[in-house]
């Protein structure tokens, strides 16, 4: 005789407790980390996230067309991070211009710049940075790259980011298919409204609602 399914079924909370007890790190990527977040300094952008800021332990993609303001947006995030922590910029294309970062409010004294030769080296370098806790956030500048990221390395980086409670920001172009959708928790698409006004739309997210837009004013 078949058993009544509901009698043996665990509730989500029970299941979560069971898994968390056995594998403590298994739920780290989810909303449990809502308390460990950083506020971007832009009220509108922060309000998109239930925790009032972007949770740590995530892989984030910031995408946009040429001159859309995606680099400015990344500088806004880096400015918020370097206020209390440290960051790394993996400059694959050699296009990082420190004076522009300073102008965007980034404390470059608290930022490492790594210029690897290849994409794979860049991913390994990021992994290494998180493993040794050199920075709590790493930006991988993938603008101009066309080849997809090696899945294995990306997966390892994701695990390392979760363990280190870090954050990886991939800076990509709008039409790029470099990163598989399953690998990132959040995708922000940036468009420029005016010279000092950007709009960030959440096109894919596991940490907030999708399709919502926030306006960001550049100081």
């Amino acid at each position, binding site marked *: 005789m078949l058993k009544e399914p509901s009698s043996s079924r665990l509730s989500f909370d029970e299941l979560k407790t069971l898994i968390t007890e056995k594998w403590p790190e298994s739920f780290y990527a989810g909303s449990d980390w809502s308390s460990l977040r950083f506020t971007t300094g832009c009220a509108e952008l922060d309000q998109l996230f239930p925790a009032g800021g972007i949770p740590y332990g995530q892989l984030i993609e910031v995408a946009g067309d040429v001159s859309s303001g995606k680099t400015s947006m990344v*500088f806004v995030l880096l400015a918020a991070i370097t206020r209390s922590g440290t960051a790394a910029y993996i400059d694959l294309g050699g296009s990082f211009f420190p004076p522009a970062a300073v102008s965007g409010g980034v404390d470059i*004294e608290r930022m490492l710049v790594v210029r690897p030769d290849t994409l794979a080296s860049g991913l390994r370098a990021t992994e290494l940075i998180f493993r040794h806790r050199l920075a709590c956030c790493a930006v991988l500048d993938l603008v101009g790259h066309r080849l997809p990221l090696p899945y294995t390395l990306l997966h390892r980086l994701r695990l390392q980011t979760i363990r280190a409670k870090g954050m990886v920001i991939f800076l990509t172009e709008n039409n790029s298919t470099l990163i598989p959708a399953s690998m990132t928790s959040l995708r922000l698409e940036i468009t420029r409204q005016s010279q000092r006004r950007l709009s960030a739309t959440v096109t894919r997210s596991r940490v907030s609602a999708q399709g919502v837009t926030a306006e960001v004013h550049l100081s």
Partner: protein
Amino acid sequence: MSGARIGCCVLPEFPVALWIQERPSIAAFPLAIAEDEKESSALVICNRKALDAGVTRELTVAQAHTLCPDLQVRARDQQREQQAAREIVTRLRTISPFVQDAGDGLFFLNASGLRFIYDSEQSFARKIIDLMTRETLPATVGVGANKFIARIAAQTVKPGETRIVPSSTERQFLAPLSVNLLPVSDETKASLYELGLRTIGQVKAFPLNELMERFAADGMLLSRLANGDDPDTFLPELPPDLLYKRFPLSFALFNTGSLCLYVERLLERLLERLRQAGRCCRRCDIICRLEDKTDLTIVVALDRPASTLPPFMRQLRQSCESLDLSSGVVDITVAIPENSLLLLEQLSFQQRSTGAATGEVQAQLAKLSEEHHCFKSQLQAAHLPEQNFRFLPATEKIKAERSERPFVQPYAGHHLSGLRLLQPPVAGDLISTGKQSMLLRVKQTLHTIERTFGPWKLSGGWWQSSFDRIYYEVQTTDRKLYLVFYDRIGARWFVQGVFD
């Protein structure tokens, strides 16, 4: 910011107010506080009556007495002031649980999420005024989106009054106010006056590049403040002795499992308080009063600070495995004896270090590629944008605390925002179509130019390698913004970068 609301309570002339609080009769006299009782010591602060008599802060006691023979001078007692400030913080905690003492009679309170307790922010502010009035201390209260706005709001009203700055109206509120209210050095304020900038609104309208050029690191701060943004974080104090929870039981408890459940509930509330204050801890003490009137203390110590329950509970369950409760527990107290001042945002750095020095990591990074590894960028004075910075090997760990860094004026164009350099500059071309329109060719793609900004001319002297460039910022009809220059020596156009 994230919709946060901060209240600020200002006690004007705090040391003077404390003396008047102790002896109200001296309020009728001109009163000043000096560093000590010597005639040669300088005055620290004085009341309105003394100011009206011409007494100012920099004067010595002897000079002040010459100007105002009735002047009552008291020596400053910093210990007493600190004690009074602590007492005020304790009283303010009855209004909001999170209070920060910023010194000199300045107190910040977390005003977020108090809508269930107070009808409005106005009644929250009035509550503070009433509390201070009961203490016979004149106070002003401001409420705003951050500490800066709240402080300015409080400083621009008379004693006993309040001012609320609603969300999204910060810029309008700041615009007509004097630059004297900005928390910057006196030299910076004097320079702002020299530039003809009298109000915060005028500072906001001043080009950011100009501000940065003239005020170096203060330029960015000025810009942010003028826009109502405060870089200073609200850090409330949590005195360790207050961080405990007690639960008396009406029956004796012999089961360690049940004990863990009670501890879990109590600890959860304490950790929630820590989290709200953006803090964490690495140790908690569980004091169990037993039936035989003895105390049993269980210390749960983690190897790294945390602000969540699971690591503490795991450790507690392990400790309880070997616990023998032959005498029942009748009272449980959970205490957090010490909490870390570090912000939650920095929690990742408090994790157990792998022990590797930056040098070793750098060596590993170097292995990944032959030449490129870890750098720290530094700005430097140079004419050409591509020389405005250099990369230094990052041999030391990144500084934990913010340092005063020398600032070098970078590229002098208008739009610095998000500039991405093309290295080396890409050869481009400007083509005239003859219909009063121009085309920009970048990598075989033609863009119609909509607007141009510039020109800026850069040329090298005879002692430098020769260069002669005319820079333009070019906006195309497809809303792309390029930094281009005309190399007069090679008679060619180049694209130096893209504003992104």
